[in-house]
């Protein structure tokens, strides 16, 4: 038995983390947002070159086929760093095409998604909100329980930016007139997407906890680090517990990406635990920072906003609780 990522993936994680922290040290993402640099094309090109976008794309379509463990790990690190690139949108679009695309669709888009030459996005809720729809080349659209591919350079496509929670990514209202139907079933795609997003959420939880831990150790009140007050210590311990429970559920989700026998349960549990942990960590990270946490410059809000956006982005917890308990109920009948 081996319930951990492979040692190869562990080694790769070091590299991914180093590159992200070199490129986006604390404050850098917010400054990019403030300066209107909403899409860092240089960094995006670098991700393509490094092969991070194609780890789960078959080799014949330009991917490295390193596998889902690697993809989950990268999603976690990206979720922690929040770089201004359309990572999760693009890998989920690639995932939809890998699973459900025709040969022609795969041949046309996967190589470009694997290198970052093309950007993907998801439109799962109708016209809006479509995250990263402003810069995407294709959209995976859900309608009436089916999935569709929409190429966004066509006539009839309109993208209208709307105000949404996330501070880094832009959402649009997307309208279009032509779409190609994909073969797959929506709930299976949502399950797989939920697991990948859960790793993003786990990464965000870890980052928010790290911020809170760091600040609580540096900030003094009443002549002592605020981290020495049990009210703070125990809260941070509880966030750590939530993080570990989320991580363990997400790991089982990563396993279920390869062996789908238990996919709906693994995906639902991974998503529920990760949404809960990230919400808790993001909100208490602000609170631990006190008044400073409430300032734009503290960066705390990047996670607070992202946590909520991710929590509703693939349906909110209600959908996943129903899915989880329905399956467990059947299994125990």
């Amino acid at each position, binding site marked *: 038995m081996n319930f951990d990522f492979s040692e190869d993936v562990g080694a790769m994680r070091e590299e991914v983390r180093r590159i992200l922290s070199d490129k986006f040290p604390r404050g850098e993402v917010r400054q990019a947002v403030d300066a209107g640099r909403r899409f860092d094309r240089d960094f995006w090109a670098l991700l393509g070159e490094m092969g991070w976008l194609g780890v789960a794309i078959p080799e014949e379509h330009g991917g490295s086929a390193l596998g889902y463990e690697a993809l989950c790990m990268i999603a976690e690190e990206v979720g922690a760093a929040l770089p201004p690139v359309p990572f999760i949108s693009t890998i989920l679009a690639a995932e939809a095409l890998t699973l459900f695309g025709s040969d022609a669709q795969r041949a046309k888009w996967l190589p470009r998604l694997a290198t970052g030459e093309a950007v993907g996005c998801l439109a*799962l*809720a109708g016209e*809006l*909100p479509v*995250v990263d729809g402003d810069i995407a080349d294709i959209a995976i659209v859900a309608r009436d329980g089916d999935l569709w591919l929409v190429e966004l350079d066509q006539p009839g496509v309109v993208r209208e930016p*709307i*105000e*949404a*929670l*996330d501070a880094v990514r832009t*959402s649009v209202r997307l309208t279009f007139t032509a779409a190609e139907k994909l073969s797959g079933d929506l709930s299976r795609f949502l399950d797989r997407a939920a697991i990948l997003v859960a790793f993003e959420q786990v990464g965000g939880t870890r980052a928010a906890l790290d911020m809170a831990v760091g*600040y609580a*150790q*540096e*900030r*003094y*009140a*009443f*002549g*002592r*680090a605020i981290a*020495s*007050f049990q*009210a*703070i210590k125990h809260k941070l311990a509880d966030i750590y517990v939530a993080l570990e429970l989320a991580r363990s559920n997400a790991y089982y989700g990563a396993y279920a990406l390869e062996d789908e026998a238990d996919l709906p349960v693994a995906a639902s549990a991974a998503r529920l635990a990760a949404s809960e942990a990230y*919400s808790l960590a993001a*909100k208490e990270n*602000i*609170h631990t920072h*006190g*008044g*400073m*946490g*409430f*300032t*734009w*410059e*503290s960066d*705390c*809000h990047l996670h*607070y*906003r992202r946590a*909520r*956006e991710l*929590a*509703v*982005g*693939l*349906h*909110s*917890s*209600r*959908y996943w*609780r129903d899915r989880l308990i329905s399956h467990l109920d059947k299994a125990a009948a």
Partner: protein
Amino acid sequence: MDFSDTPEEAAFRAEARAFLDAHMPLKAKGAHVSRAMTPEDVAASKAWQRLKAENGFAGILWPKAYGGREGTPMQQIIFGQEEDRYAVPTTVFNQGVGMAMPTVMSFGTPDQLARYPRPALFGDEVWCQLFSEPAAGSDLAGLRTRAVRDGDDWVINGQKIWTSYAHFADFGMLVVRTDPGVAKHAGLTFFVVDMTTPGIEIRPIKQISGSSNFSEVFFTDVRIPDSQRLGAVGEGWKVALTMLANERFTVGKAEGPDFDDVLALAQQVDLDGTRAVDDSAVRERLAGWYIRTAGLKYTRLRSQTALSRGKAPGPENSILKLVSANKLQEIATFGIDLMDMAGAITDPEIAAMRGLFQQALLYAPSKRIAGGTDEILRNIIAERVLGLPADIRADKGLAFNQIPTGAR
């Protein structure tokens, strides 16, 4: 128990209502406004304050000498209840009339008493509070802004933060350190400062919502005459506490979505063909918020009853803020989740209930911090109500300049 007014109360309520009816429209149902104050808003607030003062409704508890009514706490409560029903301008006078002037009345010199209270009451002068600092939040007495005596003046250097309405304020209530070589509470002194004094710079703070309701105030060699000192040198902590104690009288209901709003949302939202309000999990959350909302409402009534019986307001206000701030954050989060994928939309033109819940998500964190963090409030309840011991003090018995400080 009796929810009806005594004859005296009923008469006062009728008087208040007649005044309000004559000047202001009733609030629209479900109206929630939350935006930064404009100069026009301030002008409207000043005009309304003057009108209230001229009609004896601004300083209900104030002495007649300063333009007050010398009324009863119950009258103040009644006027507050009635005013809350009308679409009156957002006030910029809570700190001046509610907190600063009662403090001036406690510690002011005859000259100060002649100069400050009346213009504040009549809406001519706005006051702000200059207490918190970047390194002195929950530990307010850890403040570092220095005042050094120079002849008849004091020279101030340092930085204050979280000042509301600093840009609109004519005067500030300022507490600074005049002696870092003694224990932290002992080395403070209090001043009234004219906000137009050279060397004062005001910078708005951009909040996580993107808007700015607070400012940082920087002091660079700001000279204040000793005549603007309030209380004795070294007595600043006592003056500051007096001012904060008056805050208890001014704490209102938290703005933003409350039970009624989340109920309304649950009535609108469809979950798989049924209204969300009919869903058992939604009901469980709603019921939890209702008992808190009602519990706070009746706790406030108990407190007002005690006030009307002549008791001082106690630590129950700590409960009100602790519960309502956390409830607000929960309701905002839940409302967004209930909207499912559309919950991420903040645009008031598209979002359900004009983005009320999304907006609240972004200011709710401040409610758990401003005016006492959750942790400070729990300490107050534990120590002042339940009589539990204070936290062990790492700074006990140390001179201020010997107290350990961190990187922030």
